């Protein structure tokens, strides 16, 4: 039974800088970097060293917690650097890409009939497992568990997010193959959630073997956590897996071709990008070739791998995050503003109507990276709830985390949430509280204590 769900609370942040629907293919990938930090809480065990030649699909490291899970190189080339931080923690594995990519071939595999365990083993072997994320805790899925459902959101409502219809265009068979694999992994449903008006592509609307649910309403309507909360909420002890459309596409394509194909269509967005386009590149690609000469002010621009709510700040020398399919560039805040807090604020955005910009509801904003105020104790109530469309009390949950009260966290629904679900709460917060960081800490604690 497919469902229609209207998300009522939330916020579509209207920013300047959407990507035009033109795809350019990056002719030469310079370097790529795979950062183990993208796989939260997992410990990498290196399988390569500096100087090694790798193919696309050669494992770079396996995961200590689940030794069968491997992260592979998306390109062929030479391992040129292993970046280490404090206590020799691995921050990144840098690979200088060959001009033409050669792939490590895997033997043919009948993914439609192989037993579930063999399918999972194959996904792990090919380096496709890290695409599976799980709730609770918002981490890479534990391959030993059986999820009660799998969620794929076929649209993205985040600020300036790419149009998934466009991303998936021309890749129908690969995407369907990805979905077919998912249906084999759960005894429950695979939910493919489409947007009531935005989703037009038949690749989504006529997908086979899955439950297609329709969503409408503002961000975070596209967050899989919000979607499953309304479709089939996660109870204690239950597990749900979630994947993004580009990740499903990558799984489908790789399984069909029997090689790890790490290509990825990335939207270059944000007010500071000159040519806002979609670019076909690879997972972990260096951003410099995409952005050099394509940014208004190099020294006063913030480059984000991902979107402005959940993305990671990177430098021009930085790399695309493992799960990201969007790069955003916004102005970095520059000058202090004289009596800024009393300004009429035609260019400032607020969900409260305390700046005159609320008179222009259709306006698109150029927002800078400013905190817009000072960190303060928690004062205002009711504002998080306006942008948090779950039957969970966000403030009470945050306070339970700050108090390190595990029982209360569990009782208030911590198993159902991820930091990204709280991104808008953090955005609207009058007291500038780092909400996502608090949620992440809470989930980490809970995970450690319940493991």
């Amino acid at each position: 039974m497919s469902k229609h769900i209207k998300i009522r609370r939330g916020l579509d942040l209207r920013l300047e800088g959407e990507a035009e629907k033109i795809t350019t293919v990056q002719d030469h990938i310079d370097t790529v970097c795979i950062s183990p930090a993208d796989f939260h809480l997992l410990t990498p065990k290196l399988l390569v060293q500096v100087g090694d030649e790798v193919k696309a699909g050669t494992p770079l490291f396996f995961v200590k917690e689940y030794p069968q899970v491997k992260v592979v190189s998306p390109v062929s080339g030479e391992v040129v650097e292993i970046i280490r931080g404090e206590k020799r923690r691995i921050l990144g594995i840098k690979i200088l890409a060959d001009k033409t990519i050669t792939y490590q071939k895997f033997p043919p595999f009948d993914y439609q009939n192989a037993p579930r365990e063999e399918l999972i083993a194959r996904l792990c072997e090919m380096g496709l497992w890290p695409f599976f994320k799980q709730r609770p805790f918002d981490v890479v899925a534990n391959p030993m568990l059986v999820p009660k459902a799998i969620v794929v959101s076929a649209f993205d409502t985040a600020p300036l997010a790419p149009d998934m219809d466009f991303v998936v265009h021309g890749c129908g068979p690969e995407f369907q193959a990805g979905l077919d694999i998912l249906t084999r992994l759960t005894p429950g449903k695979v939910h493919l959630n489409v947007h009531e008006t935005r989703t037009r592509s038949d690749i989504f609307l006529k997908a086979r073997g899955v439950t297609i649910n329709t969503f409408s309403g503002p961000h975070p309507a596209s967050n899989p956590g919000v979607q499953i909360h309304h479709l089939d909420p996660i109870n204690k002890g239950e597990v749900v897996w979630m994947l993004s459309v580009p990740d499903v596409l990558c799984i489908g394509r790789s399984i069909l071709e029997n090689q790890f194909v790490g290509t990825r269509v990335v939207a270059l967005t944000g007010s500071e990008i000159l040519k806002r386009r979609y670019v076909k590149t690879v997972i972990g690609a260096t951003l410099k070739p995409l952005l050099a000469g394509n940014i208004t002010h190099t020294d006063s621009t913030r480059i984000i791998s991902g979107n402005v709510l959940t993305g990671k700040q990177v430098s021009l020398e930085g790399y695309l995050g493992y799960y990201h399919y969007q790069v955003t560039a916004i102005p970095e805040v520059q000058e202090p503003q004289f009596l800024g807090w009393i300004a009429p604020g035609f260019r400032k955005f607020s969900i409260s109507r305390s700046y005159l910009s609320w008179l222009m509801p259709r306006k698109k904003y150029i927002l800078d990276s400013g905190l817009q105020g000072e960190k303060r104790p928690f004062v205002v109530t009711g504002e998080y709830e306006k942008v948090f469309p779950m039957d969970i009390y966000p403030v009470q949950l945050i306070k339970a985390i700050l108090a390190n009260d595990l029982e209360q966290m569990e009782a208030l629904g911590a198993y159902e949430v991820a930091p990204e679900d709280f991104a808008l709460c953090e955005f609207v917060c009058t007291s500038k509280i780092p909400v996502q960081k608090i949620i992440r800490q809470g989930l980490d604690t809970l995970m450690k204590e319940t493991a």
Partner: protein
Amino acid sequence: MNFLRNFFEKKLGPHFHEGGKWHKYWPAYEAFYTFLFLPAEKSSEGVHVHDAMNLKRLMSMVIIALIPPFLFGMFNTGYQHFLALGQQADLWQCMAYGASKLLPLVLVSYAVGLSIEFAFCVAKGHPVSEGYLVTGLLIPLVLPADIPLWMVALAVAFAVIFAKEVFGGTGMNILNVALTARAFLFFAYPSYMSGNIWVSGVPAEVNARSGATLLAQAADSEFLGHFRAVNGVGYENTFLSAFLGLVPGSIGETSALACLIGGLFLVGTGVASWRIIVSVFAGAYLTGLLFNALGWNAYMRLPAHYHLVMGGLAFGAVYMATDPVSAAQTSIGKWIYGFLIGVMTILIRVVNPAYPEGVMLAILLLNVLAPVIDYFVVQGNVRRRLKRFKTAAHVQ
């Protein structure tokens, strides 16, 4: 403004930063600097862009919303003064007289309150929060104009220290700070806070004639006749004068109209909870109707809508009950919290002969109960989740 910025950042700043000779006083420097400049502080974790709302903006919105009752209170203080003396006075004379009474109160309230606030923040190394900017303006508005200044200073000191700082400062208090100051004076110096004291700057015998609030008059058993005798008009007309605020009372509370304007601004800008404001009035009105139906004495028969414009109900509903720190925090909780404030206010007014006004005590009582209300609301959510869990476990 570059001159000012240079002065602050280059000349003054270094002394207050880590290692500077006045580093201890960093919170005071930060308070002044951020008052002048919205700092160019970058988002460093989590979201990369932020809503332009911040605590300074929030507090300045409340201060703007306080302008109508502030100005009207100023005028009415003068108006009541000249009316009781039987003198003719124009608008500006009334304003001038009101200002001579109100401004010293505001000055004392800010001076004492902010000094204590700064001292605590320096001692604890916390940044100075903006909460007192509103509290400091609310306190004078809920006092009679003739209150001695030293009493105000004492009340402010008591409220800021014992209602706020001992709990950990802004955001941590249980009771509304401004109402705590008023309650302190109400119980410590009752002769200055109740009875026939409400007309400013007139001899006691004049005050005895006209210096009672409408509520005190209403509490009189022979309300209707008495009211006509005192005011020379039937109480049919008092609804309008009470709505406009041309009656004796605390400086800022008399005009329901001014509070309504401020309330619309607060709700419109999204700063105050409309749920609380609406439910306070609803609770008061329905309780008034209930008493009308019982009708055991004249006060109970006072038409319910009179309660909404008399006394401090409107001011309390708009500016006091909505204080987010001391109010209930959940949406359902806010409905219950506001409704009970309305009910308690009328209950205290009508049933308890000792206190002609009930709104202050009602709000303070519900401030104390707010966490309990929230607890039960949140427990409802917890039970829903637990039930879902048990059903799921049962199916398996």
